[in-house]
């Protein structure tokens, strides 16, 4: 599904202060993988994510998405991929303020030609168990709820791949588990999920862990038995 060949990213070429954020990275991610990308700050995780999400282009190397080289995409085609094939989740949620959860979730649909926008948005909100908060604006929701709205927004167009850059970075442990259990469920239903995290706990909930160090893949291993976020959530609920 995703294949990176010799991907290199160099920042600041024109300013003279060159930073090589990724060095000759080779990587294959299969359909249905749940990948956690870990690594120290500044190691190149976000850079990799931006390239995977086609928000940025590599300086060198080839990136195949579903067997098509990404450099051959035109601007409008890239927009379409970001709209239909990839769903983004950000650390800072990036919900539109003073705009209801429902309308936030509808956003990707207005850039596609889908019909029944309201129905699809409500369905996505159901998947993150927030259908009863549809009319609430972000400032009326908790951080965890806001991130779930953002996940619903990433889901609404039924993308194959979900990219999440530290989605739990701003959340408490319970909200983190809620978000992770949603990701695990989505992964079970066949979605490819790639998320960046700093926390070992979270990496253990993913099926595959890729560790990046100085712009290179230092480790790449699979968890035979990833921890279940929903089970742990039950324990938290019992303890309360």
């Amino acid at each position, binding site marked *: 599904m995703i294949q990176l060949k010799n991907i290199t990213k160099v920042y600041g070429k024109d300013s003279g202060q060159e930073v090589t954020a990724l060095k000759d990275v080779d990587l294959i991610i299969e359909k249905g993988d749940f990948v956690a990308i870990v690594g120290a700050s500044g190691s190149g995780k976000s850079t990799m994510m*931006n390239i995977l*999400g086609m*928000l*940025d282009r590599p300086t060198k190397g080839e990136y195949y998405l579903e067997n098509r080289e990404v450099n051959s995409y035109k*601007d*409008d085609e890239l*927009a*379409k991929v*970001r*709209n*239909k094939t990839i*769903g*983004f989740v*950000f650390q*800072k949620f*990036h919900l*539109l303020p*003073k*705009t209801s959860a429902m309308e936030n979730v509808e*956003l*990707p649909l*207005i*850039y*596609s030609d889908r019909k029944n926008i309201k129905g699809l948005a409500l369905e996505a909100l159901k998947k993150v168990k927030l259908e009863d908060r549809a009319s609430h604006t972000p400032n009326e929701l908790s951080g965890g709820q806001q991130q779930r709205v953002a996940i619903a*927004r*990433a889901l609404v*167009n039924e993308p194959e791949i979900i990219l999440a850059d530290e989605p739990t970075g701003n959340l408490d442990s319970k909200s983190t588990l809620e978000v992770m259990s949603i990701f695990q469920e989505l992964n079970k239903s066949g979605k490819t999920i790639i998320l960046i995290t700093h926390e070992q706990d979270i990496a253990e909930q993913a099926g595959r862990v890729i560790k990046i160090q100085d712009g290179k893949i230092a480790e790449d291993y699979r968890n035979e038995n990833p921890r279940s976020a929903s089970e742990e959530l039950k324990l938290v609920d019992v303890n309360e």
Partner: protein
Amino acid sequence: MMKIYKNIKLSWKALFLNKSRTIFAIIGISIGITAVMVMVAIGNGAKREIDNQFAKMGINLIIINSGKVDKVFGRAQQTNRVTTLKLKDAQAIKEQCRNIEKVMPSIDGTLKLKYDGISTMTLVYGVTSVFPEVNNFPIRMGRFFTDTENKLSKRVVVLGEEVRKNLFDNRNPIGETIRIDKVPFEVIGVLTSKGVSPDGANLDNKVIIPIKTAQRRVFNVNYLNQIYVQVSDQSYMYVAEKEIESVLRDRHRLNVRNKKNDFTLNNQLNAIKTQKESIETFNWLIIGVAGISLLVGGIGVLAVMLLSVKDRTGEIGLRLSIGARKRDIIWQFLSESLILGFSGGTLGIVLGLIIAWIIGITTSWQTYITFISVLISVVFSISTGLIFGVFPARRAANLDPIVALQKE
């Protein structure tokens, strides 16, 4: 269709969230539009008034005055009377000049009119039977005198509306006898009312009698004050003037000692031209004001839109990352600036209508608003929104989504 609706809804919302800025931009545009609307209304009013007044006079006229004519307080007046212009001159012009429809000699003077104990000072105007056509002055009641009546020096009179009102009020004047400077005349008709001439004279305060009667029985002279010449087409105006001049110089033997003209030629075209020129100047003024005020309004839109783009950098980054194309972002911001332009235009038009109306009823200026001026205002304000919205919109669309997402 759905997208346009969504965009408009979105823009309204964004504008509503920043009320004071939005109001600032809308007022900026509306001031310009209001100014233009009011000025155009005044200009149109003036133009209509001038057109109306010239319509009262007839346009293809050359007026020959005996002696010299100067402008005294804006009105054409004879400054030195001569007695050289004769009925035979009128005859000669008619026979010798080309492209001439009608020739009407005239003599006038202000005399005392009397009827049933009421008397009034009125302009008495001796002319020929072609007067209603030459001066574009139809009969409202009764009839005009005939050529024969003129030749026979009949004592018949046609009243101006003002005179009829003064002497007869609502009685029927036809067949009654009035005295002009003690000479009895039979009233045979009444002229249509025309109001005031371009130079401010009341056109209805006069009576019309045959010129022969006027010369023999009223003024006791054998000369004329004026000859009206109706040219068959405006384009012959200047040629006809030249021919008339040469005929008259010849007849008055002015060429012998190279004397100056003892008559003055005037045509309506010249008068209209000066009036039209002043309107033209006014139009340029309007264009200048429109340009400046829309520039000011446009800069308001530009400032507000740039602030809006800056404030919403994060939002733009998000939209780009979830599948918005550049042109989606461009349209989002353009529809915002278009709405600003349109709202400013609408407000400006409404204010313009109100102020023009107030000026129309409180001052002596006529104001007149045409559909075209409303349409032009709408087009102008929308284009202001468009032109000054393009740059901010493009700036928004060209943001790098990664950089934009990092801004908070």
